[in-house]
């Protein structure tokens, strides 16, 4: 082992106590052995200057607190993200189960809607019915714009809410027509209907009709079994200002009225018009009131100045 020189890791093995007995015995005879032992002993008791670990931790904590705000904000965002996701999920759930279902009919369309209890609403053209299915068992309520023909199954109170008032029934057939949220027409075809327009409550029986406009209530009787728009596809009005008749026309036909300022707003229309034929419909409405008009295109009708 110990010739004139050492193996290149010999001293490392010696100082870590990895030499064999024989190697060690040989090494002890080496002229420098005692010096190596002295070095080993001297370094055995050496140490590095103490490290004040508690102080270091303390100062680290101070630095981490001031500098790690970014990190904390990041983790907070994570929680906000989770919370937001939950919120969106709940909102979605709410929308699907608790919120209202809205049925809409487009121009000239009749749409039949079956309500949760089997009652039906036939929506006339350009109407919407909003129903909360979740609360239906407790509250039979429909929010209506436009015209609807209701056939209500017997049961608890059934309410049709409109901008102008509430129509309340127990079990019956009736129509509710809201024009521009300003004019309300209710017709009762069967049973009893209670109309609450805020200023007054009116009870309608079979064959009674009611019109509310400008806080004035008009009542009349009719002998139809079902609405004219259901039976003959006609729209019928009884003393309705011309503006609302135009609204009704627009529900049935996809038309634009040009220069509507030429229509005298005070004109009142009583009568019916066809929902099938626009030419006939316009003729019956406008010519009976003495209005002149022309087709600019298939969908545009210009009202002519009556003074010309």
């Amino acid at each position, binding site marked *: 082992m110990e010739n004139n020189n050492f193996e290149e890791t010999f001293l490392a093995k010696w100082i870590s106590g990895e030499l064999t007995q024989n190697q060690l015995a040989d090494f002890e005879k080496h002229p420098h052995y005692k*010096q190596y032992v002295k070095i080993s002993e001297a370094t055995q008791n050496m140490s590095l200057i103490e490290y004040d670990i508690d102080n270091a931790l303390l100062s680290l904590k101070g630095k981490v607190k001031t500098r790690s705000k970014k990190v904390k904000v990041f983790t907070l965002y994570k929680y906000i993200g989770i919370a937001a996701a939950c919120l969106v999920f709940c909102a979605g759930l709410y929308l699907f189960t608790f919120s209202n279902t809205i049925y809409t009919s487009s121009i000239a369309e009749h749409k039949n809607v079956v309500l949760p209890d089997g009652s039906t609403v036939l929506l006339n053209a350009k109407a919407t019915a909003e129903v909360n299915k979740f609360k239906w068992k407790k509250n039979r309520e429909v929010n209506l714009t436009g015209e609807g023909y209701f056939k209500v199954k017997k049961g608890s109170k059934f309410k049709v809410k409109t901008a102008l008032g509430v129509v309340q029934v127990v079990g019956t057939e009736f129509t509710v027509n809201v024009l521009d949220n300003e004019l309300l027409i209710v017709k009762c075809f069967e049973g009893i209907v209670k109309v609450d327009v805020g200023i007054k409550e009116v009870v309608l029986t079979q064959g009674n009709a009611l019109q509310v406009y400008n806080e004035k209530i008009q009542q009349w009787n009719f002998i139809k079994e079902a609405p004219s728009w259901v039976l003959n596809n006609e729209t019928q009005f009884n003393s309705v200002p011309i503006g609302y008749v135009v609204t009704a026309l627009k529900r049935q036909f996809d038309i634009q009225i040009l220069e509507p300022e030429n229509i005298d707003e005070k004109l009142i229309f009583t009568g019916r018009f066809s929902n099938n034929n626009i030419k006939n419909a316009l003729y019956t409405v406008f010519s009976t009131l003495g209005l002149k008009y022309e087709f600019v295109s298939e969908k545009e009708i210009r009202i002519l100045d009556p003074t010309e």
Partner: protein
Amino acid sequence: MLGSKKISLCRDSVYESFFKDHAKSLRNFLFVKFGDKDLSEDLVQEAFIKLWENCNKVNPDTAKSFLYKIAINTGISNKRHDQVKFKYQNIIVHQKKSADMETPEFIMEEMEFNEKVKRIISSLPDRQREVFILNRIEKKTYKEIAQLLDISVKAVEKLMHKALLKIRSVIGNK
């Protein structure tokens, strides 16, 4: 997943005990490497701050090597600007022997010898000095040193051997 989450370094208690386990050994390693007390202690702080900032990215298993890598790299880039002189006489302290039966002459002689050894250690080439101090003073095994310096155990042993040869030869010549 759950297991590693539980010992996440982002938790104050985990982070703190990690500091207590590794700070001293890291500081001494940097001390040996750069020979500057203030620098090495600053580097420890820097490295631990970096660790905290990345606590959710660093796997606890590799956190130690992350720590050493950051500290060494920052230390090297700092040292480039400001060449640190090794002042090992100042950083190595010699513990007094417990049995004080020796004569004053003997103690004087021993102190002289110790100072001589410290001086020689300071003058060793960087690698030899690192290995020698880590082994003799920090009491690390060759395997641990090999990992720290990212070299083979054999290379550590060779460096250790050379360091001992050098120290002895300098002492012998005097």
